[in-house]
């Protein structure tokens, strides 16, 4: 047998791949797919325990390119959040991993995006943010910065939508931003997001090499590399491992216990950011905006709020979609009660 490394659930990295990508070579979305594969492999996720969802766009094609053994739904432009909401009721013990684009999320899908956060649907929601519509060939999306000039579109005169600010305003319980070129950070954030019981928003700047990669564009590789400012070194400790807080000198670390018992240990670099503080997170985002820096890392997390499926009071042991007629149909005697309810 060739020397294939297996993880704790007995799977090789290959078991987490999908179909070969049909996106442009060098597209940031592909790097993110790779990190999803790596994160799921390293976290010992069973692919059958994951549903993957997306809307429409180049980005939304990517669920076909990872986790072949997971159920997938490439739904409608901007409407993935509603599909995910309903789907989570089928077997709420599963995890959902969703991929969307900035066009998909902040234009046609802005309404559903805001509402899925209100409901705290337990899922990872990745916005692959390139500032343009890739699949329809390079129109401005709502996240394109004011003053951006594109070859065929001309000048963008409008203020951009900031995914992270929208997420904070809508009460998201996990908000992070990263850059597709920073593989390690992307992977660590995906791992953390997968352990969050609630909606985890990852706004990942993902350059479109074909339509928006001029060095002066904020969604380009060049700009990203130059302006990225990581919040902290970020290490993910799965719950199977012992957590050794002692390793981190007091005052320089912040430990966030995830709902499933996993812990994220944050090592602060040059900023004293407390990601459990909403007001600190809001200030930081505002400052980053005025200073025009790309703030990356875990910006905000509230690990203790009930998720949608907690609120729905579903059975802890049996998923809805395994229930049978005996569970679902009232007993025969109940028909009298129904008729008596009338007059």
């Amino acid at each position, binding site marked *: 047998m060739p020397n294939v490394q297996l993880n704790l659930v007995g799977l090789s990295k290959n078991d987490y791949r999908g179909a070969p990508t049909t996106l442009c070579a060098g597209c940031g979305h592909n790097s993110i797919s790779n990190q999803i594969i790596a994160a799921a492999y390293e976290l010992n996720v069973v692919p059958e325990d994951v549903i993957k969802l997306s809307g429409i766009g180049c980005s939304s094609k990517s669920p076909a390119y990872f986790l072949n053994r997971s159920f997938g739904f490439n739904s409608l432009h901007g*409407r993935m959040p509603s599909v995910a909401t309903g789907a989570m009721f089928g077997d709420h013990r599963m995890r959902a991993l969703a991929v969307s684009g900035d066009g998909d999320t902040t234009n046609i899908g802005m309404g559903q995006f805001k509402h899925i956060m209100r409901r705290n649907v337990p899922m990872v929601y990745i916005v692959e943010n390139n500032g343009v519509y890739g699949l329809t060939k390079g129109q401005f999306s709502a996240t394109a910065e004011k003053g951006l000039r594109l070859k065929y579109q001309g000048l963008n005169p409008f203020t951009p939508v900031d995914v992270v600010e929208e997420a904070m305003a809508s009460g998201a319980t996990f908000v992070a931003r990263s850059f597709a070129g920073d593989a390690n950070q992307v992977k660590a954030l995906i791992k953390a997001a997968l352990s969050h019981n609630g909606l985890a928003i990852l706004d990942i700047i993902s350059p479109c090499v074909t339509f928006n990669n001029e060095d002066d564009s904020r969604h380009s590789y060049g700009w990203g590399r130059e302006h990225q400012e990581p919040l902290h070194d970020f290490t993910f400790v799965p719950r199977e491992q012992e957590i050794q807080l002692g390793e981190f000198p007091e005052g320089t670390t912040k430990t966030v216990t995830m709902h499933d018992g996993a812990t994220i240990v944050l090592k602060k670099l040059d900023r004293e950011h407390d990601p459990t503080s909403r007001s600190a997170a809001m200030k930081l985002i505002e400052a980053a905006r005025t200073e025009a820096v790309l703030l990356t890392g875990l910006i905000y997390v509230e690990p203790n709020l009930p998720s949608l499926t907690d609120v729905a009071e579903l059975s802890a042991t049996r998923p809805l979609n395994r229930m049978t007629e005996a569970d679902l149909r009232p007993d025969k005697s109940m028909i009298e009660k129904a008729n008596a309810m009338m007059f």
Partner: protein
Amino acid sequence: MATPQVQETQQTGTGKAVVNDFSMTVATKNGSGSQTSNLTLLRALFKMGIPVSGKNLFPSNIQGLPTWYTIRLSKKGYLARRAEHEIVVAMNEDTFVEDLASVAPGGAFYYGDHLKFEVNRTDISVYSFPAKKFAKESTAPATLRDYVANMAYVGVLAHMLDIDMSKIREALDYHFDGKEKPIAINMGVIEAAYEWAKTSLTKTDPFRVEPMDETQGFIMADGNTAGALGSIFGGVQFMAWYPITPASSLAEGVSQNIAKFRDKEGHDGKTYGIVQAEDELAAIGMAVGAGWSGLRSLTSTSGPGISLMTEFVGLAAYAEIPVVIWDIQRVGPSTGLPTRTSQGDIISTYFLGHGDTKHIMLLPGSASECFEFGWKSFDIAERMQTPVFVMSDLDLGMNTWMTKPFEYPNVPMDRGKILWEEDLEKLSDWQRYKDVDGDGIPYRTVPGNKHPRSAWFARGTGHNDNAKYSERSEDWEKNMARLKHKFETASSYMPKPEITGSGNKVGIISYGSTDAAILEARDYLAENGLETDYLRLRAVPFTSEVKDFIDKHERVYVVEMNRDGQMNMILRLEYPEHTMKLISLAKHDGMPLTANWVKEAVELQEK
């Protein structure tokens, strides 16, 4: 041309009583609490054994605009709306003049004495009564006085028509769920008004009620509550919805009642999820997501919501995801006439989506059938793996009907061709969209199935048998041909039409809430020498009985409530050889159909 009923009322003055055969209408203001009074009257008459129907004509408004409630009593059991009212009760100054004019000649007019109008008709009986006095003198707290004031006309009518007071008490008992205090307050007002009428009014009109034995074995129900209960008995597992009149009460009926019927001992959690969505786009999206994940999934809306759902419905049909959608039709575009009834979404719903799509539509014709289709729609959706529409309307959905009791589902749940781990284990090959059985229906798996070969990828893009992305023309064509075949298979699985009469030259086809008007109209036509056969459609695609019926008749009138004869168009599309036989009789005034209109429309053609 006058209807037989009106001829009967013209006998006023001859002294002959008109018993259990008239319409009475109460004119009030929206939000004034008259609904309790009207339902009390309706239910008391029903408990007296008299066939009755109640229709609420209400404005799109919460408080203040005119609203009318009509109760029809018919010893022959006719339940359709009639355009004529023999008794009118006026409680609203804004419509007083109109209400007075609307009383049929020989009829009776009651009005509250707070309305200072001149009553100038001599061809009717006129009674005024102190509408506010009894509430003021009652034990009702000041805040409730305005609401119980309407009980005055209940008391007055009880005396004048001979309504059994013990049945009124029964009706109140039901309405207030046995709560003694409100029952006593309301009953007090009714009794005071009754006593007052006894000593103060002299009856000069012929209308009276008498106990009968014609409501035994029936219940009073509205279609939306019936549909909600039917869905609960059908094992609904997920519902997402967005408020819209006249569909909201169906969704509310599910959420308010499901726990009562479904929480069983031994359950450690709920057996359902309910979400009030942010709009119809989200409601259907959630419902489709839940259907994909293996749940009996439901949404309810009306025309404007259906149009927003279009893209998802097309996707669900193509990705083959079961979901049930109730369309409680109203008069539309946009807000249209949101509180008036219609059968105007037939064509748009049948073809809803993009490219070549056709959908299954169930057509309930009574409240008890709303219950039946409540559960049956899930069986059909899961069997066919496709969206199923239940096409009700405002009249059926929101009005109170005398109907057969709900019947417990007579077949076990049909979950369709669904494969779990152990099933896949036995199969060497499984392809999501492969037609294995020759019926066009493939096998499906749902998320949560842990078999390594279970997963498939739902998408709107072209796909092959294996659910893999494909833009090949052959794959597309093959798939679309199979979907067409699946739709043909569906026709053999549909509820069959209800056919009455045989051997006549003239046939009538109708569907939904028009049923009552057709049944009555056929009697009038027969009295005038035209015997007809009648086929009530219960589903599209049509079963073979529909073609047989058209084959056997020289002329077939297709009666419906829209402008262009939408069902007639579908029938002509399906049976082009019969185009000349099919004659559309379509009405679209927002009001429930009357027998008189049907009778006259047929006679006009038959002349």
